[in-house]
């Protein structure tokens, strides 16, 4: 189990309570597909991904980005039990979606950058450290059931 200080819990709660899921979710997945184009391999049925413009305007990608971001809500609500909380999603990503777990790190790096752009100087080094710790724990949990 991961230890969280009161300060860290507060930072995470605050960040998510002010989060514009529609905006950030769409931007994060879009940016991931542009910066790491090989991640497009998982989105064959999502329509036109031909170039950066097409990806940015693709409503299926935007919607899916929001869905993924809401996936973090589970960790938010179960910070002391993230590994167990994501066991089912881990199996899904491994057995059904066949996502290489290295890709979780790529998306989490991009999400960090999108949130940094959104929060500006409010994204202090301390907030960044806490947020990256949170994402790292989620990423680890999502990779746990792969076999």
């Amino acid at each position, binding site marked *: 189990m991961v230890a969280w200080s009161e300060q860290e819990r507060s930072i995470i709660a605050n960040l998510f309570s002010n989060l514009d899921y529609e905006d950030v979710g769409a931007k994060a997945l879009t940016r991931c597909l542009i*910066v790491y184009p090989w991640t497009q391999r998982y989105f064959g049925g999502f329509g036109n991904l031909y170039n950066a413009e097409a990806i940015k305007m693709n409503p299926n990608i935007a919607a899916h980005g929001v869905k993924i971001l809401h996936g973090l809500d589970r960790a938010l609500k179960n910070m002391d039990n993230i590994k167990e909380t994501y066991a089912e999603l881990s199996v899904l990503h491994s057995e059904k979606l066949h996502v290489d777990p290295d890709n979780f790190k790529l998306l989490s790096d991009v999400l960090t950058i999108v949130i*940094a752009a959104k929060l500006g100087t409010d994204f202090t080094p301390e907030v960044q450290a806490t947020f990256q710790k949170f994402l790292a724990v989620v990423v680890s949990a999502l990779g746990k059931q792969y076999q």
Partner: protein
Amino acid sequence: MTSLNAKDKDTVRAFWDKVSNYGEDIGRDALCRMLAVYPQTKTYFAHWKDQSPTSESAKKHGITVMGGVADAVTKIDDLSRGLLGLSELHAFTLRVDPSNFKILAHNIMVVMAIMFPVDFTPEVHVAMDKFLAALARALAEKYR
């Protein structure tokens, strides 16, 4: 990984033109974040009296490192040859594990996103990511 194409180089140069006046600020903030978010990187700075992220040594070093990045932009057409001296320094004297280049690159881009949220588009992001990776490869070239 791939090398930089003409579009990547143009994109990096154009973005750098916009932000170069803030090079020192970017360097200071990126180094500070690296030390704060990835404390294992402090192991390279045991010789500093004060290894905290906001120390004078850290600020000075951030400026030095970003100066190197700025120089690399001017040598973007041949990073291996242009950065020969720095490459030898990192290989034989500093011996920084190459995984740390990636860490610093990430923090440089976080700062770029904070300072230039509109200009640091996905297209600029991918070009900058590729450039910093190519720069890291050039720095690690003489390692073995």
